[in-house]
């Protein structure tokens, strides 16, 4: 593993996080704060792209850079959990459960769809 690859991991990771910030902010500005749609859109779109990359069966370095670094950084588990926990603190139990179930079901479905598309390419 070359130092160049790890430098690229750092750059891709930074870029993925910045992209998440903008997509999340953009969606949240339109959807309001009742439900964390911003994170949902980020995570589902990211799951689909990573599924697509998986279907493409990239080499080790390409998978590390595009998948693990860029898309992995773009999506977030911690904010998903934080927003769910804050919803339960506000006694929004149905929204909290919906946030978990919808993210998980759509996430796996989006990854499967992406892998299907990637495999067909």
């Amino acid at each position, binding site marked *: 593993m070359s130092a160049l690859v790890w430098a690229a991991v750092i750059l891709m*990771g930074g870029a993925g*996080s910045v992209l998440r*910030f903008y997509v999340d902010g953009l969606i949240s500005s339109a959807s309001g704060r009742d439900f964390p749609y911003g994170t949902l859109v980020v995570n589902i779109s990211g799951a689909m792209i990573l599924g697509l990359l998986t279907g493409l069966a990239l080499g080790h370095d390409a998978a590390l850079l595009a998948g693990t670094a860029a898309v992995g950084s773009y999506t977030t588990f911690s904010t998903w959990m*934080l927003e769910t926990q804050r919803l339960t603190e506000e006694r929004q139990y149905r929204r909290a459960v919906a946030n978990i179930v919808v993210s998980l079901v759509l996430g796996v479905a989006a990854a499967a769809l992406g892998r299907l598309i990637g495999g067909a390419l």
Partner: protein
Amino acid sequence: MPEPAVPRTGPPAPGSDVHGPEAVVFPVPRKSRLTPPRADRRQVAAIFAGGALGTLARAALADAFPHSATQWPWPTFAVNIVACLLLGYFVTRLQERLPLSSYRRPLLGTGLCGGLSTFSTMQVEILKMLSAHAYGLAACYAAASIAAGYAAIHLATALVRRVRVRR
């Protein structure tokens, strides 16, 4: 999470109440339109730096501990739970204890924890388990990640708040 209020320079937004040059302008309720989040260059740089560091740690772990489709994905599981502990701690402390800072949340929350944790890798891991007919493993992995992640946020939040009450 949407960013909290960001100090602004320049003319005050219509309807805002400015108390001085250091005043923080809270976003006025907007109509439902797609509006890009406001962030100055240094905040974007903070998100980039935090995200780069978190991603480097996660990618190094994933690279060092490869696993097959039907093995428990310890690298992803570990970074996700650690990121939840950190995020719960940072966000609660920054929102409820420390004075408003423009850079800590982007650096530590959006950047570091967001870059360290990953949703997409977890979903693809679950998908691969399902494809390998390891349904029990997939269900356990999903349930354990969510339960532990939620508990980590809850625990870190409670710890910060308990210290606060004692003061």
